[in-house]
């Protein structure tokens, strides 16, 4: 079932075209990786797919409806976004920050109920942050703050999650833990993920599909089918070495 669709997307920043004529159909059960060099338009594309930014041309459809015509709250109930970096804000504690993920679920005058606290606590537990619930955000380390952001996304409980470099600031243990958790959610009925990643091997391990951006051009498909050393060299402008066997490959910059 196609849940998120892009038709004829053209992206440009400061007059410079990043990609043109992009069609994408994202279906339930899939986890997509957006791969590309710095400045190739990964974040711009992720924001466009999220409805946070309008494309220069083309439309985004969420469950068949033009995303621009949907109520912001209705969109937030169906798709969650993890941004690349969090902005430093005024002091707030960890629990409060995670509870902001419940905003779309509340009525305009409603306060968070026991169900919202249960979801937020479960999300904190999934990120091993139970003991941080009452801590002020500025007292946390960069990786811990990143896990708080991810916990807020999980508490939002949106079937479609778009994540911009989710592994930023995370140690190896949490990189795997977070990606396994996110990829696992795509097995739930109607769920799917899109993430911008820089680690090709993590992408191969956790993502089913890929969209490659390079030099204003794009290529998409099942990730294991479209990735080889030659394609990677074209994207990242450096030679790659392939190791392992089919179905269990890794790539290293040579």
């Amino acid at each position: 079932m196609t849940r998120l669709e892009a038709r004829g997307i053209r992206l440009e920043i400061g007059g410079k075209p990043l990609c043109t004529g992009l069609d994408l159909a994202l279906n339930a059960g899939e986890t997509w990786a957006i791969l590309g060099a710095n400045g190739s338009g990964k974040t711009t594309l992720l924001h466009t797919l999220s409805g946070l930014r309008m494309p220069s041309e083309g439309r985004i459809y969420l469950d068949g409806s033009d995303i621009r015509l949907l109520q912001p709250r209705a969109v937030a109930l169906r798709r969650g976004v993890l941004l690349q970096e969090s902005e430093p804000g005024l002091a707030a504690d960890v629990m409060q920050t995670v509870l902001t993920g419940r905003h779309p679920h509340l009525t305009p005058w409603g306060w968070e109920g026991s169900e919202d606290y249960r979801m937020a606590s479960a999300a904190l537990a999934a990120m091993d942050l139970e003991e941080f619930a009452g801590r002020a955000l500025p007292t946390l380390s960069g990786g811990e703050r990143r896990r708080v952001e991810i916990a807020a996304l999980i508490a939002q409980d949106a079937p479609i999650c778009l994540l911009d470099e989710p592994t930023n600031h995370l140690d190896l243990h949490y990189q795997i833990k977070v990606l396994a958790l996110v990829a696992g959610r795509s097995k739930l009925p109607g769920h799917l993920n899109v993430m911008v990643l820089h680690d090709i091997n993590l992408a191969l391990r956790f993502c089913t599909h890929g969209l490659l951006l390079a030099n204003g051009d794009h290529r998409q498909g099942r990730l294991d089918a479209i990735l080889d050393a030659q394609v990677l060299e074209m994207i990242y402008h450096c030679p790659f070495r392939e190791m392992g066997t089919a179905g269990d490959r890794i790539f290293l910059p040579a």
Partner: protein
Amino acid sequence: MRRPGVTPFLVALAPASLLFAISTGSVHVGWIGLWHALSSKTPTLDATIVRKLRLPRAAAAFAVGALLSLSGALLQVLLRNPLADPYVLGISGGAAVAALGSMLLGLGSAWLGLNAFIGSLVSMAIVFGLSHMRGPWTQTRLLLTGVVVAAGWGAAITFLLAISPGSDVQGMLFWLIGDLSYASHTGWAYAALFTGLLLSLPLARSLNLYTRGELVATALGARVGLIRTAVYVLASLMTASAVMEAGTVGFVGLIIPHLLRLLGDSDYRRLIPDSALLGGSFLVICDTLARSVIAPLQLPVGVITALLGVPVFLVLLARARFP
């Protein structure tokens, strides 16, 4: 799951501060006299002092304090800058130039308030217009525009002070420091306060999202464009109404919201009403001290807000683990 927080204490503090204000002054009115003054209709001297002088002035002080701290709380989240206060965007500067100009021309006190209000609106329109010239504003663009416009007004204020006759200068300085003895638009101030509260409370939960950044707030379903215009206009009109009533009382709008944050109020659904209550009570207490510490001489209330506010704030800040 809703903790009571400091709200019950603030609800009790507000009437206590008003009681303190009407029972204190250069003429001693005992508790029994106070009771008679408030309950009986006989126009005794005590009754006149309490009902015609102290009560209206305390009511004006409460409205001004509440307006300023609510406006400060809103601008701090709009600009995502803890240093923001109601005057940071130049609203008070426009008001001050208009007010000082009115004094220089010898216009009456009714004109003074009205012109100050018009001056605020002019400044607000300039800042809003300039920061919108090329597409939607960014927080930095709005803040820089406001700060520079404020600096321009500052120069005009200095010029007006320099060319004014000495007899006018004291009144001008009192106005600039903040003084409630001119207060004559209390009804308007309360109308602005209730409008501000009524319109900002429905935005409160979205403002909680806003503290995580505009993009996060948009992603979570907040109408960011609407919110920032609403917050800017509301905060500006509330500041203008406060300035019209009492001149540019400093410090209240900066420290009261932070004081509440240090006491654990970071949720805007609490911070908005709590700011109004604490700001109002704080200014009532300060104004009572301003007119009684060296009675019969009266100090401008702005002196007391800083003298009282600075140490309290610094102690709390030093004890806090963050920011």
